[in-house]
C-alpha cells in the first residue's frame, strides 16, 4: 500500500533535515551538512512492512514554489494522503510563508480533498523556553483558521529534542493500517501479562505506533522521549559497527525491556519488578504470532 506524503515549506525551514533524522538515521548535528534541496526529492520508505511512504520533499526556493502551484500543480497535489507544511519560527517573511501555505491549501482542496494536513512550526529551540507554548498556540490558532474547512493539526518541533518524534509519530499513526486493532490487542496483552505499560515502535524509525497503559503516568511526552533516547543510542552503536539488539533497565521501582517484537516492530514492556522477567518475556513471545498476523 503506497501513501503519498508531501513535505513542503519555505527554503531552509528544515524539511530535509527532519526527513534525514527520522528516516535516514542522521544525528541532529549531522544535518548542518545538508545543502538546499533543488527541485523535488522523491523517496520511498517502507514502514511497518506493508506500507510504503512515498515522500515528496519539495525544495522551497521561490522558483520551485511557483512551479508547484502552476505547471506541476496537478501532478504534485493529486492523490495525497498527507500534506506536511513546515514553518520556520525564526522566519522574517511570515507574510510570504502564509501566502504559499494558502496556495497549497487551495491546490489540495482542488486535488486531494481527503488529504490530512499537518503544520509543523519548526526550530523552536531558538525560542526561549518560557515563551514556547504561548507563541505556538498563537500561531497554531491562526493556521487552523486559515485552513477552514480543511482540518489542520499543528505541532511545534525542533530537531534538538523529542518534539520532532512526537509530531512524526502522530503523522504516521494516521497512515498505519489496522492501528485500532493493534491497540485493542495490545491493551489485552498488557492486562494479561500485568505490565504497567506496553509501547510498540516501528523498527527503524522508532516512531510510536501504538501503546497500552494500565498504570497512570503523568509524563505525557514519555513516548517521544523514548523514541529519541533509543534512536540516539542506536546511532551510537552504529559508530562501533554494532547494532542495538535488546535492552533491560531496572531499579528498585521498575524494570523495562526493549526488544524486537514482530518483523517490523520493537516492543517496550514496563513492569514493577515483582514478576520475574523470564515469565513475562515468554508470554510476550507467545503473543507475537497474534500480532504478526495483523500486519
Amino acid at each position, binding site marked *: 500500500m503506497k501513501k503519498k506524503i508531501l513535505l513542503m515549506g519555505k527554503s531552509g525551514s528544515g524539511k530535509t533535515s527532519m526527513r534525514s533524522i527520522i528516516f535516514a538515521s542522521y544525528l541532529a548535528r549531522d544535518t548542518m551538512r545538508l545543502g538546499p534541496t533543488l527541485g523535488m526529492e522523491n523517496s520511498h520508505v517502507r514502514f511497518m512492512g506493508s506500507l510504503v511512504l512515498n515522500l515528496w520533499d519539495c525544495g522551497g526556493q521561490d522558483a520551485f514554489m511557483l512551479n508547484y502551484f502552476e505547471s506541476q500543480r496537478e501532478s504534485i497535489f493529486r492523490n495525497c494522503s498527507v500534506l506536511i507544511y513546515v514553518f520556520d519560527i525564526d522566519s522574517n517573511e511570515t507574510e510570504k510563508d502564509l501566502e504559499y501555505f494558502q496556495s497549497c491549501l487551495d491546490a489540495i482542496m482542488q486535488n486531494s480533498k481527503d488529504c490530512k494536513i499537518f503544520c509543523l512550526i519548526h526550530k523552536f529551540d531558538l525560542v526561549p523556553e518560557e515563551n514556547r507554548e504561548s507563541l505556538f498556540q498563537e500561531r497554531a490558532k491562526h493556521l487552523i483558521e486559515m485552513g477552514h474547512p480543511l482540518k489542520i493539526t499543528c505541532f511545534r518541533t525542533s530537531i534538538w529534542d523529542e518534539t520532532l518524534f512526537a509530531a512524526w509519530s502522530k503523522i504516521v499513526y494516521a497512515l498505519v493500517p489496522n492501528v485500532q486493532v493493534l491497540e485493542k490487542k495490545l491493551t489485552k496483552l498488557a492486562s494479561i501479562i500485568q505490565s504497567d505499560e506496553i509501547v510498540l515502535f516501528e523498527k527503524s524509525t522508532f516512531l510510536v505506533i501504538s501503546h497500552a497503559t494500565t498504570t497512570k503516568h503523568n509524563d505525557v511526552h514519555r513516548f517521544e522521549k523514548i523514541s529519541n533516547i533509543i534512536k540516539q543510542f542506536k546511532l551510537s552503536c552504529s559508530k562501533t559497527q554494532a547494532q542495538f539488539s535488546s535492552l533491560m*533497565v531496572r531499579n528498585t521501582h521498575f524494570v523495562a525491556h526493549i526488544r524486537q517484537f514482530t518483523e517490523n516492530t520493537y516492543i517496550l514492556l514496563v513492569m514493577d519488578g515483582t514478576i520475574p522477567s523470564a515469565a513475562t518475556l515468554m508470554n510476550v513471545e507467545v503473543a507475537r504470532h497474534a500480532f504478526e498476523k495483523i500486519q
Partner: protein
Amino acid sequence: MDNLNKPKILLMGLRRSGKSSIQKVVFQKMSPHETLFLESSVKVAKHDVNNNSFVQFSIWDFPGQLGPDEFDAVSVFGEAGSIVFIIDAQDDTQEAEGKLVETVNMAFEINPELVFEVFIHKVDGLSEENKIDLHRTLRQRVSDELTQLGKSSSALHITFHLTSIYDHSIFEAFSKVIQKLIPQYPTLESLLDMYISNSRVEKAFLFDVLSKIYIATDSSPVDNATYELCSDMIDVVIDISSIYGVKNEDGCLPPADDSGAGGMGQPAGTYFPCDNETSSIIKLSTNTVLYLRQVNRFLAMVCLLKEENFDKFGLINYNFQMFRQAIQDVFNAKAKQGAN
C-alpha cells in the same frame, strides 16, 4: 579542615576560549547548544563538585581578562591541584600560547607540584589530520618557549588534550584530569583489574553518573569508541529511569522534571533516578554485552563483555558484590583518614 582536602582545579585561558561552557556542560548538565547564550564571566566562579566519595573538588572558573596581578597568585596557585588551560583552536593560538607560557612560568615558581592540562578546545570543526598537526605543533612550540625560559619540560607536568563540548572528548579529557587528583587511583585500578580477569570481562569503567566522567578503569588500553558507548549507555539508563523509575511517597510517578533529573544543586534523592538496585544489560548484534551496575549513589560500573562469557551470571554477580564491598572499604578508609 575540609577545604584543605579538596583539590582545586583552576580553569584558565583567554576570553571566550570556552572555560565557563566547559564547566557547565561537564558538571552542570548544560546542553552544548545552550552555552551559546552564556555571558562572559566577570569574576571568578567557584563551583564545588561533591558527586561522590572520590569525586570531590572545587573548580575555579577564571574570567579571561583577569591578569595575573589581579588575584592573589600565591595563595591561589599554592593550594591548587591542577590548572586546566583552555586554548581556542578556532582562533589564532599565538596569544593563547603566550598567556599559557606566562601562567605556567609563574605558577611553577609558586607551586612546583602543580599539574598542567592544556585543552586544545573547539576542535569539532577540524579534520583528524588537522587535529594531530595542531596537537603536535602546539606541544612543540610551548615546550620550546618554556625551555627558553629555563624550565625544562620534563620537570613540568604538562599534558595536551584535544577537546570539544559537542562530543565525548571533553568528558574524556576531564576524566584524565580528575584521575590524577585521586590518590586512591592505583587501588581502584587494581580492583577493576581483578574484577575483569575473574569475570571474563573485556573492559570496565567506574563512572561518576552525574558528570559521566570515569574516575577509574582497568589497566588495558582505553578505546575511544568503547568509552563513548559506555558513556551513552549511562544516558540511556538515566533517561529511562527518569521516566519510569522515580516514585513519590504516594506511589505515583511524579510529573516530568524537565530541568534535568538530579541537577548538581538539588539535594540528593529528589529526582535522581538511580538507586542501589540500578542495573542494565544491553545486547548488541556483535555478540557483545554492555553491563551496568550501580556501585553506590553516584558511582556506576559499566563493563563490556562477550555474550558467551555472560552466561555465568551467578559468578559475575558474586564478583561484583565483592568489588562493591572493596570500594566501600576504600571509601571508609578515606573517610577515616579525613576525620583524623
